């Protein structure tokens, strides 16, 4: 039997994993996904093998999603029914996605799966990222807020299609009905993407928003339920094979649970377009990072002529730095939105309190006179 490569824990490793976990947690608590796309490469750079990195990442993800979804359920943002239904179909997508990955690996080796992952990343992020960002900008321009959520036209059309025996009612779309036949492929695609690039939410969240008509804040919260179901299934699969390094997973969890709580709190202070802005920007930055890496994979598969090793090294570092930038951007944007929102809220509360006191004083004075 072959030995699994478990990395040695030292102070440096622990601090790096904790910090990356914190930032990744904050982004996923806010936009319902993310974090994983930089955690897996980070673990691999610290010496973990690819499969141990993916397995351990999943083991930290499902408890984080559980805590995040409980927290956001308290704020009334989670549609549990939709999350569970999508989660079940996503689980099927995860297993199919794994089969696809294994097949490509058998045919073209690791370079083949790397190219496949990058290609999926680029296509998905280019379409979804641009769409989400444009929608966020439009909402800001038109001055729409959370309480003025307008169901997208395509979602209205989907909701109008009645297929007898398949209709289900969901609280997140104001108790309207949608056919489960539209939810199944969304869940399946989310799971398949999660198995391929570890960030299923990049499809799940926008699909819930634009196809089913769920408001952005509720879609990001419901995605956490989907992530929990997918993560639990995936972790059981990997744990059965002994690939989960629970030490790594729990150190990341230590940081990410601080972050996920903060991200979830942040959603209660921001406008819907802010969530879309942050999500869209992160997607575009991740897209750039994958584009930088594309020539490396193409040269490994001999589709283009071989690249200079020094150039490959530069492209590797540049790609990783761009990913790190995506997370840091997310952290700064969320922190800024949270601080601004909290300050505004405190000012409003103080003003309301002052008005109440003034009215009370006025009532006492008039009663005395």
């Amino acid at each position, binding site marked *: *039997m*072959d*030995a*699994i490569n*478990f990395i040695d*824990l030292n102070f440096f490793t622990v601090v790096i994993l904790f910090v990356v976990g914190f930032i990744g947690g904050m982004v996923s608590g806010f936009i319902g996904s993310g974090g994983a796309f930089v955690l897996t490469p980070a673990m691999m750079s610290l010496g973990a093998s690819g499969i141990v990195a993916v397995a351990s990442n999943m*083991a*930290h993800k*499902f*408890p*984080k999603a*559980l*805590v995040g979804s*409980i*927290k956001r359920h*308290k*704020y009334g943002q989670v549609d549990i029914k939709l999350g569970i239904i999508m989660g079940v179909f996503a689980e099927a997508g995860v297993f199919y996605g794994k089969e696809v990955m294994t097949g490509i690996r058998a045919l073209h080796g690791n370079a083949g799966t790397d190219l496949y992952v990058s290609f999926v990343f680029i296509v998905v992020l280019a379409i979804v990222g641009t769409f989400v960002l444009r929608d966020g900008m439009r909402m800001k321009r038109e001055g729409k807020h959370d309480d003025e959520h307008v169901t997208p036209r395509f979602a209205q059309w989907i909701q109008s299609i009645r297929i007898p025996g398949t209709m289900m009612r969901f609280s997140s779309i104001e108790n309207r009905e949608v056919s489960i036949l539209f939810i199944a492929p969304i869940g399946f695609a989310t799971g398949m993407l999660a198995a391929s690039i570890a960030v299923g939410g990049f499809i799940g969240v926008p699909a819930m928003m634009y196809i089913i008509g769920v408001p952005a804040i509720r879609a990001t919260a419901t995605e956490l339920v989907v992530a929990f179901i997918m993560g*639990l299934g995936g*972790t*059981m699969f990997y*744990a*059965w*094979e*002994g*690939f*989960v*390094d*629970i*030490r790594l*997973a*729990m150190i990341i*969890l*230590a940081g990410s*649970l*601080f972050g*996920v*709580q*903060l991200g*979830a*709190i942040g959603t*209660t*202070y921001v406008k819907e377009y802010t969530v879309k802005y942050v999500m869209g920007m992160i997607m575009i930055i991740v897209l750039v990072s994958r584009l930088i890496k594309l020539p490396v994979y193409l040269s490994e598969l001999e589709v283009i002529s071989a690249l200079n090793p020094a150039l490959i090294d530069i492209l590797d570092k540049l790609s990783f730095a761009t990913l790190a930038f995506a997370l840091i951007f997310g952290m700064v944007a969320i922190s800024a939105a*949270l601080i601004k*929102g*909290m300050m505004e*809220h405190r000012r409003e509360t103080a003003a309301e309190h002052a008005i109440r006191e003034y009215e009370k004083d006025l009532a006492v004075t008039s009663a005395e006179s």
Partner: protein
Amino acid sequence: MQKTEPAHSEEAALEAEQLPTTKGFMATLKSVNKYRCAAGFGAFSIVLYAFLYFYNTDLTHIAQATHDGEKTWFFVPIVIALVFSIIHGSFTSHFWDALGVKAKS
């Protein structure tokens, strides 16, 4: 009715007088509990992580044994993940609460 009305208004006046004190006491109790909860779950969380550190070699042995075909303890990582998420999750929630970082109500 006529007899009970003054009693009611006396009670109401008494209640109005006592309310700020009771409210103040409850607020103090709540804020003390907030810090105690954060400290309690924090301590529990530290104990869990200390165990993880002391038994870290055993955990890698379990994973290797599972990989080699001995599946008896395959569920250990899942149980650890769930326990840590509940305890550490409660700590982080109370931690931000104690720092005054709360969701908008």
